[in-house]
């Protein structure tokens, strides 16, 4: 019996068990939210991968000793400065 049929039938037989609908969505649609949900993934990991949430990436990297080049650090600093500048600009423009 094909996998998609088995998943469909289990979802039909156990409608209150969300794992089966998530597993079906994960297999058939490759739905990333379902894949993370049924894997009981860490919330920061989910946000980092699915939402590209930079705060979550930093939280996942917390305590890690930084390596890399000065150029990379510079890019990150410029990015941070640009973000702060943009936030200030938006705040001022609202006032």
């Amino acid at each position, binding site marked *: *019996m094909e*996998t998609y*049929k*088995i*998943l*469909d*039938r*289990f979802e*039909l*037989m*156990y409608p209150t*068990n969300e*794992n*089966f609908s998530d*597993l079906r969505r*994960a*297999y058939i649609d*490759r739905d*990333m939210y379902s*894949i*993370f949900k*049924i*894997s009981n*993934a860490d919330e920061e*990991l989910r946000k*980092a*991968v699915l939402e*590209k949430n*930079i705060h979550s*990436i930093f939280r*996942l*990297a917390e305590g*890690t*000793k*930084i*390596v*890399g*080049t000065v*150029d*990379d*650090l510079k*890019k*990150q600093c410029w*990015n941070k400065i640009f973000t702060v500048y943009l936030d200030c600009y938006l705040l001022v423009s609202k006032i």
Partner: protein
Amino acid sequence: MLEQNLYSLFRLLPPSFEDLKKAVCEDNIHSIFRLLENDNLRKLIVNDNQWALYPLLKEYKNTNFVEALKYMFIEEIKFDEDCLSRGQLQSKIWLVQELEKISLDLGVVFLCAGWYGTLATMLFESKLSVGKIRSFDIDEQTETIAEIFNKPWVIDDWKFKPVVQDIHDINFEEHSYVVSKDNGEFEVLWDVPDTIINTSCEHIENFADWYAKIPKGKLVVLQCNNYEEIEEHVNTHNSVESFASQTPMETELYNGELDLQHYKRFMRIGFK
């Protein structure tokens, strides 16, 4: 620009963050699964490996359907998959749900034209009180698969046993019947049924004769349909009222119909 900066951020991190980088920046499915540490899910989704499906199903639900399907997959046992079609399952789920509402002790159940005994699996795994189930079917090909679907209850002192027999030959007062054993030998059993279930009434030739053999006072659960396109459907009905006129009961506990898109299924539960 954001992506470029994410790359530069990850270049600041040690190599152990390589998978996270690939997952975040490239949506790399292999890296994502390494981070999730869910090997069975990875094998199922990335490699379409059905071997990995069964541990996942088992993790989510303790049902013998998982073990049975896994066993038949491994042993390459062919069976008619229509036994697990949406219509078949919906009909049986409906039956179990209505019986659970009535909440009766089913005692010794004679499942007539029981096919692969999937209904027996569902009854055993429901909230219902079931003594034992004997599944009668004229097709000897159904016997092995019925035992696979109900293996835990076969092992448990034969709480389930399939019987190859024409349901017209059942004595519903008290019945002696022959079952096959693991070693190929046969054994004669004897039982008095408390509950008689037939979910294939549309298939039964001379239905009136069969129904007449059921003694008064027995709990009966009957299903029929209006699907006339199939040649083997020799006893279809167009309404539950029509079905009721063929299956009189002293005490009616449930009458209903279920719309299954291409056809309707009717069900009657009561004491004959």
